[in-house]
């Protein structure tokens, strides 16, 4: 069996509002599958249905070959879950939290103690093993929550926004841990709003918008249409209102867009000369602050497909989950 997760026509509404509307996808065994979308797109609702925390209104779910649609408990022993918020017990130590989570999956005392020690060691938390979870930093909490998710050696791991709200160094460590788990053969279902994180980690990605999957493909194939593009970003102060029209008129071979206030994005199939663009802008009273070449990324594809600015989505999520 090549597929670890098979989801068909999954749907869920809350008080008449469609949260997930007929979602279909498969996740292959050993794959690191990204599930990307703006806030409120239906990512967490989908994860909740896959892990048994929500009941689908329609559709089917098969996990590890087991039909979980009617009985979500049937495949829970195969699955590990790392929720978007660290929900371990504040008053227990790191070690006790891991041992408790292992016991929930029926692991014997000797085995769970050894496994907990090993994971604390692997995750760089050995020295904090006997400290209360409530006293951990955000990054440490995130790492321990991931350790709790894999304590019972699940074949499939659900990671919901694993790096949200933690500092850059911790986020890097967490990404390394995810990559290591993937290398060891764990099937990983990752939701994130950090598009560069998904680009770096995932093999395939699904974009979900308003409860519907708008695109599923490999990162390579998603980026392909823009890979050969040459992109330039120019930051300006005092930008005149008609700058877009003037640029298009002067440079008909180039594509112009304004992703943010005071920012001009230039795309072309050939290398773009900076000089003529800057001169034209300055001629029309715009003050050029910065001009730089940009590597086309998955973020560009995300913006094209969803019409949502990734930066705005990131800010919104960080505002809710605590900035990183």
């Amino acid at each position, binding site marked *: 069996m090549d597929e670890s997760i098979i989801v068909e026509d999954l749907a869920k509404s809350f008080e008449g509002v469609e949260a997930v509307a007929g979602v279909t996808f498969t996740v292959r065994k050993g794959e690191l599958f990204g599930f990307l979308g703006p806030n409120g797109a239906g990512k967490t609702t989908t994860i909740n249905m896959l892990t048994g925390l929500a009941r689908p209104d329609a559709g089917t779910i098969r996990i590890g070959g087991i039909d979980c649609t009617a009985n979500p408990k049937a495949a*829970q022993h195969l699955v590990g879950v790392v929720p978007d918020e660290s929900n371990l017990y504040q008053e227990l130590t790191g070690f006790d939290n891991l041992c408790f989570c292992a016991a929930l999956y029926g692991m*014997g005392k000797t085995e769970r103690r050894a496994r907990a020690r090993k994971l604390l060691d692997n995750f760089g938390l050995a020295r904090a093993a006997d400290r209360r979870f409530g006293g951990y930093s955000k990054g440490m909490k995130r790492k321990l929550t991931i350790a709790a998710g894999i304590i019972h050696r699940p074949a499939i791991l659900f990671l919901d926004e694993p790096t949200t709200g933690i500092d850059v160094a911790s986020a890097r460590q967490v990404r390394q841990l995810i990559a290591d788990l993937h290398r060891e053969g764990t099937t990983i279902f990752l939701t994130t709003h950090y598009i560069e994180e998904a680009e770096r980690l995932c093999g395939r990605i699904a974009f979900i918008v308003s409860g519907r999957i708008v695109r599923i493909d490999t990162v390579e194939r998603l980026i392909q249409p823009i890979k050969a593009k040459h992109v330039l970003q120019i930051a300006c102060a005092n930008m005149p209102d008609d700058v877009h029209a003037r640029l298009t008129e002067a440079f008909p071979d180039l594509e112009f867009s304004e992703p943010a206030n005071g920012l001009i994005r230039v795309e072309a199939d050939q290398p773009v000369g900076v000089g003529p663009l800057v001169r034209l802008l300055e001629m029309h009273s715009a003050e050029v602050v910065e001009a730089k070449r940009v590597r086309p990324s998955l973020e560009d594809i995300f913006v094209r497909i969803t019409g949502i600015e990734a930066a705005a989505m990131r800010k919104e999520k960080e505002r809710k989950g605590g900035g990183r």
Partner: protein
Amino acid sequence: MKIWIAFWNIMLKDMRTYYLKPPNVSWGIIFPLAWTGMFFIKTGSGLESILTLLPGVVAVSILFGTTSMLAVTVTFEKKNRSFERLLMAPIPLELLMLAKTSGAILFGVANALVPVAIAAFIVNLSQAAWSAFLPAVVLIAVVSTFLGLFIAVAVSEVFEAQTFSNFFRFPMIFLCGLFFPIAKLPVFLKPLSYALPLTYGVDILRWSFAGQNLFPPALDFGVLVIFCVLLFWLSLINVRKRWIV
């Protein structure tokens, strides 16, 4: 075997984290003492009235000991999302809820034994029908715990659980024959007394210590069991409906 490891550890975790904490242990000792003292002062009676007061003190100790804890072990854990961890574990929901309530049941039983132990130093309890008293204490602890569970899963906030618990607990002190005989209640309140589980529990306790009872003990036990099953079943329905949406 595996699910029993989970069951045992959930119960053990709750005992260590909540029930065996000093504030709860002191509550379990001070609360029955305070109730006993209050009634002695109020009635001005001597030591001979201990056997009359003991069933009420035992029942009220169990009732408050169990119901007050469920707001923390269930509602609080649901609120801070650690309960989701339990819901996502491969344990049948029925067993999970039994594991979450077994600590409260044991705590309730332990609370019941405090006033009995104190009374044993003061009066002769050798005539008590222990074979009825002990199962009655366990059943009162179970029914009170499941009443607390029923309330805990019906609300979202800890303060709501505490508030709604009081709506049940305080009327039960007066309506279930704990300290005021049901026979002396106004006629219109009596049906309410008969609709409350503690009435039947206290009836067995009173019979165990003083040989006085309203109903045959077999009927009391039967009604308590029915209340236990009903409250647990309703709580499970509520968890499935409200928490696994």
